[in-house]
């Protein structure tokens, strides 16, 4: 081929392609690599976190005060920088009208924004220290919604996650699962944590760790609003009226059970001891069981229970008091004692022989109904 003006060598180098490659490499190095990296300028500039959704966020202090005043639950939205789900939640789902209207109407929302994963509790940013004591933030690397009912606003996460209401736990026959499984239902967030939506039909939890669709989010918001709205279970014991405390001594000795209406310890007591075959048998057949529940929301209604606590020197609940013991002395067992200990305590009070522990037999609760 003659060398004219249009002549191009076979080995001519594509300068424009090289320029594009170098530019793209530089841009990718500075901006595109690693959404969690601090130098990710592009992510910073285009971050959806720059555009706040129309949710009226409060500070935690303001939310605690407002919750005490209005009785609305607090919704903590824990968002982590660079987390896909956090971006989707804040940029997409929080901007949907039904979501932000529902949140603004029914919750007191608080935004907890973590710029990076906290590996040690001691390194928690100062502004979130108080919250982290309530709900540990260390090693959290993805989004979470955490609903705290007004009456539990100052409690720690163990008490908030705990429930003794069978409907809230999504179970109807707790004993059929074996009592060890209550711990699972009580301590961990139910199906929402792992599957995004409830699988047990009506199991509800105050924590949302994973969600797939907008419907999942709305389902959570509808359900979590009512967490701890219902009364906790009182087990299978045939409770007698509290007025028997002041009247003449009944034929069967009186046993007082004092419980908190919220809190992990009392919830465990309700689900373990008050569904235990031996405990229920002893209380129903040989005793006059009386239940006194502490009302957290209305302290003025707790005069009787406060008097009993003072009388027996009780500083915390639950507690069980055997009033009319054989030896004439009132006996007290403090805290969430194991079922076997409660049984022995009742047998001692009744003057019965100690039983042989039998943990292998599971009790079918419906026989009592």
């Amino acid at each position, binding site marked *: *081929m003659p060398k004219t003006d249009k002549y*191009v*060598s*076979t*080995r*001519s*180098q*594509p300068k424009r*392609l*090289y320029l*594009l*490659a170098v530019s*793209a*490499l530089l*841009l*990718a190095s500075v*901006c*595109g*690599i*690693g*959404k*969690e*990296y*601090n130098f*990710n300028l*592009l*992510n*910073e*500039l*285009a*971050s*959806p976190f720059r555009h706040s959704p129309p949710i009226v966020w409060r500070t935690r202090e303001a939310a605690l005060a407002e919750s005490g005043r209005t009785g609305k639950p607090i919704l903590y939205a824990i968002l982590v920088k660079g987390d*896909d789900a956090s*971006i*989707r939640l804040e*940029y*997409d789902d929080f901007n949907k009208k039904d979501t932000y209207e529902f949140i603004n109407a029914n919750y007191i929302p608080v935004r907890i924004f973590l710029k*990076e*994963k906290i*590996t040690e509790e001691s390194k928690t940013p100062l502004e979130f220290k108080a919250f982290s004591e309530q709900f540990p933030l260390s090693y959290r690397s993805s989004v979470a919604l955490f609903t705290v009912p007004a009456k539990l606003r100052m409690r720690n996460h163990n008490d908030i996650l705990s429930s003794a209401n069978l409907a809230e736990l999504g179970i109807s026959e707790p004993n059929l699962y074996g009592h060890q499984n209550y711990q699972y239902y009580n301590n961990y967030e139910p199906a929402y944590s792992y599957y995004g939506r409830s699988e047990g039909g009506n199991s509800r939890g105050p924590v949302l760790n994973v969600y797939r669709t907008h419907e999942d989010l709305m389902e959570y918001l509808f359900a979590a609003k009512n967490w701890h709205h219902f009364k906790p279970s009182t087990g299978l014991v045939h409770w007698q009226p509290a007025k028997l405390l002041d009247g003449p001594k009944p034929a069967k000795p009186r046993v007082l059970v004092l419980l908190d209406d919220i809190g992990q310890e009392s919830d465990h007591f309700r689900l373990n001891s008050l569904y235990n075959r031996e405990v229920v048998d002893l209380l129903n057949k040989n005793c006059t069981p009386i239940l006194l529940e502490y009302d957290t929301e209305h302290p003025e209604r707790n005069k009787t229970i406060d008097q009993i606590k003072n009388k027996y020197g009780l500083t915390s609940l639950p507690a069980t008091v055997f009033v009319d013991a054989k030896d004439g002395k009132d006996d007290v067992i403090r805290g969430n004692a194991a079922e076997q200990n409660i049984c022995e305590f009742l047998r001692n009070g009744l003057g019965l022989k100690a039983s042989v522990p039998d943990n292998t037999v599971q009790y079918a609760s419906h026989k009592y109904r």
Partner: protein
Amino acid sequence: MNRAICVNTWREFKSNKVRLILLTLLFLGPLAHFTWRRCFSPLEIQDEMISFSAMSIFFALIWGIGVVGRERQHGTITLVLARPVTITNYIISKWIAVGLAAAICAVQALVVEHAISVYFAPSLLLDGEFFANMAERIIIAFGTASVLVFCSSLVTGIKDLAIIAGVLFALMLGAQVLSPVYHTAYTWSGISQVNLERLAHIGFGALAAVFYPNIPIANLFTFGGEYIGSVINYVCVVSVFLSLAVFTLSRKEFSYAQD
């Protein structure tokens, strides 16, 4: 782009029976899998059963292995370059030929899978997942094709397959060897665990950009930094590997090539 080079690449592919058999298996594999699932999980019949968009990588592999190397081995590249065709034009043509063929095959397989799903559940006809998967298949096919053209320009024949397998093996081996170092590095190196995780994240991000060059369609709707970032990464991978391919091939000796 040179049309004759593209057509020649496709013709050469058609003459290779092993590749045709592999291509057929790649079509039939997911269909057999979904049929099996439909037989034993009747509840899933209503679901959209389409394979991952990453399947496009395998289509690109079948089309792209030895795309330049085989021409060098057979000596036909010297004849092509004896014509008024620049190496840049040659490489771009090969890239488009492989990318287009892989994208068409991948989309064709997807359409068949989708058609079967629609047969069982007609409401899935305009399912967004199908269109997103289709777009991603095309994007991945062209991204992977650029990497394969570069690998093929390094060696003769289909030794680029050995290069790719070797690199993957070395990466796996390296990950195993470095894993204990990584998990203890924060104790002796003075680098905090968070920064170590960031460094690892950058490494994985770069590897993912090369071996899985994709622009997630779901991110398209957010128009956030992530979307722009993935576009930049994709453009970077394609332009860098095509540039390297041109640069490498320019330094090879071709007896009949001009100047």
